[in-house]
């Protein structure tokens, strides 16, 4: 039950993009087409879950016992950067089709603040390893949901007549605002 609550909270109530503003860059940058945003969401889910697990273990078994909490930011970003590289190499070797699908999105994920953000939030919320993983899964579903909804709307927006000054990013941002407004309706769920 507890896990269900964490997932619902992460997907709908505190949606990572629309309520917490993490991962806005890919949300605006690669959401032009539904197919690319599906690929990006898949890659983010992959890295986010692994990164949360690894950073949790490092925080609780290396940083905390030795009193190195102040190194958190440096360690986490290095872990995430090398993890992304590693995932890329492994995928290339064992699953070329998956690599083909996710490949171009993987390097972009290092600078996706959703990954570092969720890793730090998991530590701040004092989650156990299992709760942390569930939280990461929930957040990546939330990211995927926002991303795919938004790209679907943007595909239609391309065909609409928008006032010249608002075309492109400004209109997309206002659509994002309306989407965020819709997600605020879920606030009562938690």
């Amino acid at each position, binding site marked *: 039950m507890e896990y269900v609550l964490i997932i619902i909270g992460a997907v709908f109530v505190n949606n990572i993009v*629309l*309520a*917490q*503003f*993490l*991962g*806005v*860059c890919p949300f*605006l940058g690669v959401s032009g087409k539904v197919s690319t945003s599906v690929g990006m969401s898949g890659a983010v889910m992959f890295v986010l879950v692994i990164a949360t697990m690894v950073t949790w273990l490092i925080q609780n078994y290396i940083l905390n016992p030795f009193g190195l909490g*102040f*190194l*958190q*930011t*440096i360690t986490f*970003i*290095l872990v995430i*950067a*090398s993890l992304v590289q590693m995932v890329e190499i492994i995928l290339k070797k064992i699953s070329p089709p998956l690599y083909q699908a996710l490949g171009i999105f993987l390097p972009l994920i*290092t*600078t*996706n*603040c959703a990954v*570092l*953000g969720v890793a*730090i*939030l998991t530590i*701040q919320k004092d989650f156990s390893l299992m709760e942390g993983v569930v939280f990461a899964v929930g957040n990546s579903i939330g990211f995927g949901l926002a991303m795919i909804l938004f790209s679907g709307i943007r595909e239609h927006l391309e065909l609409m007549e928008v006032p010249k*000054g*608002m075309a492109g*990013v*400004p*209109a*997309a*941002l*206002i659509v*994002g*605002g*309306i989407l*965020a*407004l819709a*997600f*605020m309706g879920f606030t009562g769920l938690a």
Partner: protein
Amino acid sequence: MNSIVQNLTKGLIKENPVFVLLLGLCPTLGVTTSAINGLGMGLATTFVLMMSNMSISMVKNFIPDKVRIPAFIVIIASFVTVVDLLMQGYLQALHGQLGLFIPLIVVNCIVLGRAEAFASKNNIFDSIIDGLGMGLGFSLALTILGGIREILGSGAIFGIPLHIFPVDDKGNPITMIVFVLAPGAFIVLGYLIAITKKINSK
């Protein structure tokens, strides 16, 4: 002399990191619930930008090309940790407000972007000026965004009430609360980008 002024001012409007280059949008949207928060975040980022630009342009000749990105990230992360600890010590209230977004300066594309595009090719002095200019542009954008959201959403600016909204029975102003919430951030930024586009196209 001209190039110094140019380096310093290009970030303000012409190459404004937020309104024109669309970099660093996560903290831009996340922390700008008031003008003070926006300014605080902007200045913290400016400090990191200046220091990392300076260090990177100092060590640029010693870093092998292949590992330069990880090396840049470590330098940036160190300065972010410095800012994080300093703010925790001296500006506790602001640190609490900005919360998660302070460590997230590490993954702010502006910082790594300037390191890669400017500091790794130019001398120390120019790099510091570039960092300062870009940082001030970022601060300006965040303060404007925060100010507009604060005026519309809380009826105040820098915490000073403006009395522009009608009041209810208890004397509290009836404001457009949606602007301090998440949707307001997207909508105000959308309009500000459209306005900047208009100004720059002239």
